């Protein structure tokens, strides 16, 4: 399979596309787990898009002013409130975790078990930090600002439902990712992939795809919900 005519090309030409799709062979020359993760992420893209598009729709159609996220998510450290500061820190935490994950994938392919494991644990820890900060943000909004899914004192009632739905679903993804990464990291540590997969660390890249996707979704949430 790895030596037929189509694998010799770069895979970037339309001819290679037609060959990959039209011939009686495996269409995607990647491990099946990776192809399936990509297809799962594609379906997840549609789920998050539905949330963000419905948010756009309710924000366009409400006659009541939308609460200003810059003020709602401002935080004071003793002095004047700094706009959106908590969200900015959360964004940096998630990007840092994306970087450690990318390095973990790289060291996984170098069969550097120790570095792979620790970088994955670091990624999971940063993810857990993100979820912790989100819990703080939710608590502040619910307890201090009185935001509810059906209304809030600052403006359009739909603000709460869009906020809890979108960030809640994203936070759920981060939490699932933390568990996923921890399991894979523990298996890297215990030598599971050496014993059962012949030293194949493909799973690290697959877990990495999921993690980067979670970061990717946050990029869109940050832009459309918090900055817009």
């Amino acid at each position: 399979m790895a030596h037929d005519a189509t694998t010799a090309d770069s895979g970037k030409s339309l001819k290679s596309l037609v060959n990959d799709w039209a011939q009686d062979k495996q269409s995607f020359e990647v491990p099946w787990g990776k192809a399936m993760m990509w297809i799962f992420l594609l379906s997840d893209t549609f789920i998050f898009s539905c949330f963000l598009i419905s948010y756009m729709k309710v924000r366009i159609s409400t006659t009541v002013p939308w609460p200003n996220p810059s003020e709602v998510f401002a935080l004071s450290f003793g002095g004047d409130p700094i706009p959106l500061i908590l969200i900015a820190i959360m964004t940096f935490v998630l990007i840092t975790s994306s970087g450690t994950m990318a390095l973990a994938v790289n060291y996984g392919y170098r069969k550097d078990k120790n570095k792979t494991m620790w970088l994955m644990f670091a990624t999971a820890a940063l993810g857990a930090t993100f979820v912790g900060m989100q819990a703080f943000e939710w608590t502040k909004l619910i307890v201090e600002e009185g935001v509810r899914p059906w209304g809030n004192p600052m403006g359009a009632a739909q603000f709460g439902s869009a906020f809890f739905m979108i960030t809640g679903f994203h936070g759920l993804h981060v939490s699932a990712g933390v568990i996923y990464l921890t399991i894979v990291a523990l298996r890297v540590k215990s030598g599971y992939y050496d014993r059962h997969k012949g030293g194949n660390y493909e799973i690290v890249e697959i877990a990495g795809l999921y993690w980067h996707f979670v970061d990717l979704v946050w990029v869109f949430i940050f832009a459309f919900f918090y900055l817009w």
Partner: protein
Amino acid sequence: MAETATAEGHQQHPLSIYLWIWLLLFVLSAFSYMVDYLQLQGMLRWSLILLFMFLKAGFIVAIFMHMAWERLALIYAILLPPLCLLVFIGLMAWEGDYTLLTRIASFTEHVFIPAAGHH
């Protein structure tokens, strides 16, 4: 450090690529935050938000998720279907405007009544 063939499904690239993209993502995130911090408004705000958003998303997908090194068969299978979301976005924006108009017409207290010429 050598790049191995993607035909084996392995994605091995120099560490420096990841470190540069990591740094770039930090810088772009800082820029997006500055859009809000400096309270830029209007078209400038929206275009900058979208610009930084698409740049960040592009680098994450292309480099961190290795899409740039995948074969066209996989790239098209994953990246083309989301384009139909553009139709969805268009329809919902249209529908949202219509809903807003009907709400203004039906539910607001100050219904538009042409003023009679009494002055």
